[in-house]
């Protein structure tokens, strides 16, 4: 709380006003989504988008959970599996790598950083066919591993982890631990990982949201629709109207709101990692 009490009242008001303005810009457009979720398919297109028509939210929810024998729930479950398994593994692999790159000087380190940054530059369009041939050779196609395993190795997360490690871990602290006789692995788990908790939580959240919203990988590597994640499922529903005599946009709207629930829950459960006031003293 020290920050707020130190701030002058005028500053505090300005800060809150600014935050309110940003919050309005961020949240106001979602109003359409909320209103649309309560409408029937015909009202969706022919009534004012900013206000309610006949209230059909319960029907829409029932439709969402019963359509095609409740495949939406299967999709949600798959997404949870891919998201949790993939992101947990990714966070471990990438935080360790970023920590290693930030805290140690060893031969090949420059090449590694170059490769990581270089990989950001490659347009994905170039890689679809070569990657598919590789996944076929590895027998990954149409297995959950095709989604989970590659997500472990996120160059972006490594870079982020390195940046956070450099900011959060004073090298002297590691020196001190070494002089106390701790091994490098123990130092990582007892000092490094703890100091990087905010960074790691951020990396986890970013990875999870990315995995939750991804559909191109699943579209290419998964065949059976019962293995699809929710975003690919919603995408396919959205596309139904293009050349079928039916339109499922209403289900997509409700489904996308429901699909936000786990992400919001995750966000709330990670709140404590962004608490201000980690102090060096508290670690010693």
């Amino acid at each position, binding site marked *: 709380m020290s920050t707020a009490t130190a701030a002058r009242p005028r500053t505090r008001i300005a800060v809150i006003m600014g935050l309110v303005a940003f919050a309005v810009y961020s949240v106001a457009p979602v109003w359409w989504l909320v209103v649309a979720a309560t409408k029937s398919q*015909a009202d969706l297109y022919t009534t004012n988008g900013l206000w309610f028509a006949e209230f059909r939210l319960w029907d829409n929810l029932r439709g969402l959970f019963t359509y095609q024998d409740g495949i939406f729930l299967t999709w949600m479950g798959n997404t949870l599996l891919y998201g949790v398994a993939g992101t947990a593994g990714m966070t471990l692999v990438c935080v360790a790598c970023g920590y290693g790159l930030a805290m140690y000087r060893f031969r090949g380190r420059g090449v590694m950083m170059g490769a990581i940054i270089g990989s950001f530059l490659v347009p994905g369009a170039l890689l679809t066919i*070569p990657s598919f041939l590789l996944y076929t*050779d*590895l027998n990954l196609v149409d297995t959950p*591993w095709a989604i989970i395993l590659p997500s472990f190795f996120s160059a972006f997360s490594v870079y982020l982890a390195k940046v956070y490690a450099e900011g959060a871990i004073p090298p002297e602290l590691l020196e001190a631990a070494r002089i106390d006789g701790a091994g490098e692995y123990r130092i990582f788990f007892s000092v490094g990982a703890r100091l990087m908790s905010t960074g790691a939580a951020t990396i986890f959240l970013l990875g999870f949201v990315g995995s939750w919203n991804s559909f191109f990988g699943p579209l290419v590597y998964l065949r059976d629709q019962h293995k699809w994640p929710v975003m690919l499922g919603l995408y396919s529903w959205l*596309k139904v109207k293009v050349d*079928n005599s039916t339109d499922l946009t209403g289900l997509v709207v409700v489904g996308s709101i429901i699909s936000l629930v786990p992400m919001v829950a995750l966000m709330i459960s990670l709140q404590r990692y962004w608490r201000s006031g980690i102090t060096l003293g508290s670690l010693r």
Partner: protein
Amino acid sequence: MNRTHVSALAASLTLVTALTGCGAQEPAGPAATASGPVTVTWWSWDESKFLDPVVAKFNATHDRIKLKVVKQADNPGTAANLRNVVAAGQDVPCLVKSFGEVPGLVGEGLLADITDAFRPYTTQGLYNEASYAGAKAGDRFFGIPAGFSPSFMMINRAVYDKHGVAVPKTWDDVIAAGEKLKKHGVYVMNLAGEDPSTLVNLVQQAGGSWYAIEGDSWKVDFLSPASLKAADVVQRLVDGDLVANQTYQDRPALISYFDSGKMVSLPTQTWQLGNYELNFKKSLGDWQPIDLPQFADAPAFVTPAHGGALLVPKGCPHIEEAVAAGVWMTTSKDAIDASYQQDTKQYSWPGAVPDPSPWIDSAVPEKLFGERRGEAKDVILKATKAGRDPWVVGPNYTGVFSELQDQWAKIVTKEITVRQALEHLQKFTVDDLKSKNVNVRG
């Protein structure tokens, strides 16, 4: 892409063996079950509710061949996935819902020549002969004809009557109606800037084609009399400001616009009617199905009927069986009946059969045409019988279509004339074929 190189690179990595261990093995492919029934895999991005009953019916009535459907997410996704599996040469499906023109896909090297397997079925009177052209590249079959959806027009009769405008019979009538309606702030048609199909359909209706095969060479002619006749209709609609330019992307605007009575004639096909029924509100019952307007000098009543195909990809291990299953799907009464939907009371449109009349009534929704619903049956049957398919495309049509889209947008916004666009496309197409080392004249 060369597969051996992938393997070599991958194998050089120690991780590989570990990974193949974790990856669950693919279910044994059809090749592995030589003694039992053969499994034909079918890719489609239609809703499962349309696909599953057809598969169930097939498997209930066939012992030697089993059909298995793999639901795809959408049209471009299917295209990406097929390119990938054909390149990998593994787990290639045997039937795929078409995502482009057959010759374009053959030009890409994606399809298998099924002429020998399919030819016996062409002598049994199973197909409407107009449906063959859409499954061929040159004189060879690369897919099973899936036929066409008959073209007709629906007009908002209430608005036509309100302004005392006569129902159009020719494209000249449409233009005349457009001029009268314009005074009341009503557009006669909609030409979406992203969709050049109106021009393509008009060329087909005029009996034209932009490509032709002469011997072992292509003849490209975007400036044929038929093509220019079509161009003239489009040009007059655009020049007179008689058409709206609503995009399909903005669905709420499109639907409420169509529903509002400000745009009153839609060239349409049976499969679209369900969507209009579902989404229209105010104008339900105001619409009337009418015959597709004709060119004034047309010798006979004609509708454009360029068909689609059920693709058979290169690398399909069971072409005979795939063709048998595909023919069953596109022509048998069992298959068509199995596609019946309880909720909408509709069948998938049997576009390839010579006589679709038993299924026409169900293709017409309940409320859209109001008391004129009865007229739809005759309109649709007449359109089916008058369907002609003079349309031939070349191996580079996918790319030419992409260029056509850019040109069309400029036509609709009056940046260029239709003739200028056609002249440009003539040069573009010929140059492109030459650059690919394909024989071409024109």
